[in-house]
């Protein structure tokens, strides 16, 4: 206890120096929390965009359709699945889709394209296409064969709203069919795929062309209300799905999981660098403090203070420096995160590039309680590590030498 008191008073002997370290620890912890929250928000935004706009939580296809993509392979047991989806309270929204790929051609150019035949209401509930539409609207306002394409695809085809395009694809029997559509809307999505490779048409328009019957679909995509229930639902659906493959986003987009773990690694590196810088700052300060008090520490050992006590005294001093600064940094980090969560950070001046990466231009820092605990824990580890070196230096002092250099 008295050692703690002595250590505490020693910390304040050189107020400026200790103050600088305390502020450094505070800023370090703050920047740590901010960097973590920023990266976390970045990744979360990417992940939620990928799920909400592209993959959904669960997709169902016929296994044969997944294998060779032929439009004859429609979903198995559709009636039963439909009933299950309608009765399930964990589901937020779902959409039935006809899906094939083909060619889209304008007067000027032609491109490969994924054609999605959808019900506008269901699809908009699921992937919020309407909110991505920047011109026209989602398959409305055109009487016959409306189509919605992405901004990048429209630019490549050099088409505008109401322009005519021709879709060419194979029907159920493998025959090529072609039909003309009119651009009803142009979308700008955070999904690269949607901007360049996707065309939405009405399911009824494309069903006839594919020669498929009513209630025949290629794909069901759905979002759960909570991520936690995805796996349960997937398993349940798989059981009634016969020859279908029911896949969650984790299997559909393994790169997202990879990215998740990579973002953890890069966060680890950031944490490591900030910690290392703090650690060196503290070691340096405490070494200075120890060398400055050469004689005093020598005297303490001469009159009989145990090395373990001298060691403890320096460790206490070092840890106090970190422990005073830490909570302030934590508080600042928490406060700035909370403030920025409401408003978000507007990255729109850089957002051209971000859009292409699938990230919103308004970034909201996000940090779990466990991440705060992680920061607290790493600061404490760092403090202990930083304490060892100066404390060892102190007990290596030779009291005779220290007392003679007067």
């Amino acid at each position, binding site marked *: 206890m*008295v050692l703690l008191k*002595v250590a505490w*008073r*020693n910390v304040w*002997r050189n107020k400026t120096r200790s103050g600088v370290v305390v502020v450094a620890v505070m800023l370090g912890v703050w920047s740590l929390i901010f960097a973590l929250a920023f990266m976390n928000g970045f990744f979360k935004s990417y992940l939620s965009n990928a799920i909400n706009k592209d993959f959904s939580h669960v997709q169902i296809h016929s296994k044969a359709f997944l294998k060779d993509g032929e439009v004859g392979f429609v979903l198995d047991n559709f009636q039963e699945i439909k009933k299950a989806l309608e009765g399930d309270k964990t589901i937020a929204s779902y959409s039935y889709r006809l899906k094939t790929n083909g060619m889209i051609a304008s007067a000027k150019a032609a491109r490969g394209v994924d054609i999605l035949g959808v019900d506008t209401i269901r699809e908009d509930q699921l992937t919020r296409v309407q909110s991505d539409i920047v011109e026209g609207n989602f398959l409305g306002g055109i009487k016959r064969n409306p189509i919605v394409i992405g901004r990048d695809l429209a630019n490549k085809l050099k088409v505008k709203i109401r322009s005519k395009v021709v879709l060419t694809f194979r029907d159920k029997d493998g025959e090529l069919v072609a039909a003309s559509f009119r651009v009803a809307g142009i979308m700008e999505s955070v999904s690269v795929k949607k901007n360049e490779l996707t065309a939405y048409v009405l399911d009824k328009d494309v069903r006839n062309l594919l020669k498929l019957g009513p209630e025949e679909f290629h794909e069901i995509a759905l979002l759960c209300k909570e991520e936690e229930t995805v796996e349960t639902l997937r398993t349940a659906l798989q059981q009634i799905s016969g020859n279908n493959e029911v896949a969650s986003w984790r299997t559909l987009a393994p790169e997202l999981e990879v990215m998740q773990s990579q973002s953890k690694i890069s966060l680890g590196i950031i944490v490591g660098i900030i910690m290392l810088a703090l650690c060196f700052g503290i070691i340096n300060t405490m070494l200075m403090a120890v060398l400055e008090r050469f*004689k*005093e520490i*020598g*005297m*303490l*050992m*001469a*009159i*009989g*203070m*145990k*090395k373990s*006590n001298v060691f403890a005294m320096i460790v206490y001093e070092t840890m106090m420096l970190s422990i005073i600064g830490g909570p302030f940094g934590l508080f600042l980090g928490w406060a700035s995160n909370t403030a920025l969560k409401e408003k978000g950070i507007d990255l729109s001046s850089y957002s051209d590039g971000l859009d292409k990466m699938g990230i919103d231009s308004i970034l909201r820092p996000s940090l779990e309680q466990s991440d705060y605990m992680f920061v607290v824990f790493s600061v404490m580890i760092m403090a202990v590590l930083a304490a060892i070196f100066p404390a060892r230096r102190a007990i290596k002092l030779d*009291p*005779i030498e220290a*007392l*003679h250099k*007067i």
Partner: protein
Amino acid sequence: MSVISIKEVSKIYNPDKIPVKAVDKVDLEIEKGEFTAIVGPSGSGKSTFLNIVGGLDNPSSGAVVIDGVDISTFKESALIDFRLNNIGFVFQSYNLIPVLSSLENVEFIMLMQKIPKEQRHARAIELLKEVGLEKHLDRKPSELSGGQQQRVAVARALASRPKFILADEPTANLDSHSTENLMGMMADINKKEEATFLFATHDQRVIDKARRVVTLEDGRIVKDEKR
């Protein structure tokens, strides 16, 4: 039995290169209650000798027997423990912990000896009274004069109830008035408490107070007079 019994103690620095015989085969017996000065010119080996007697350093050869215990071959950590419980120290300067008050400085050494709080508090006050600092219990060393700081150091040295008190040039940084004061006070305590003092000095005013004067020259005792 003598409190301190030094037998054929030598200390050779740099034994491999150019050896310096700082202490050369010294024999010395100090009895309880002595007030003895080790004198001699600078470089004659006073500090080296006191360091060995005080268990701060091991001799190159010979025996250092304190109250029947030969500490000449003690390891560092055993010496630290031995010093805490058997020897009181007053150095030339830097005696006190700057962040603690006079009272806390005196209590600190008893705390290291694990003496209960009430006991050490009472004893610290009593000792500070004895050295005439009862009005300055709460002052930090920086708020005391050099002489007052040395008196706190004497109180601190007495606090651990040592076998004897070692003082290496305790008055070197003091003016003549403070020197008189400090030496008078140490002589009083020596008489009153039967505390054994051994100090190194080359200050004539200090030598005058001593009741036994041991003179060193080139690490050897050349004169040993009792008065």
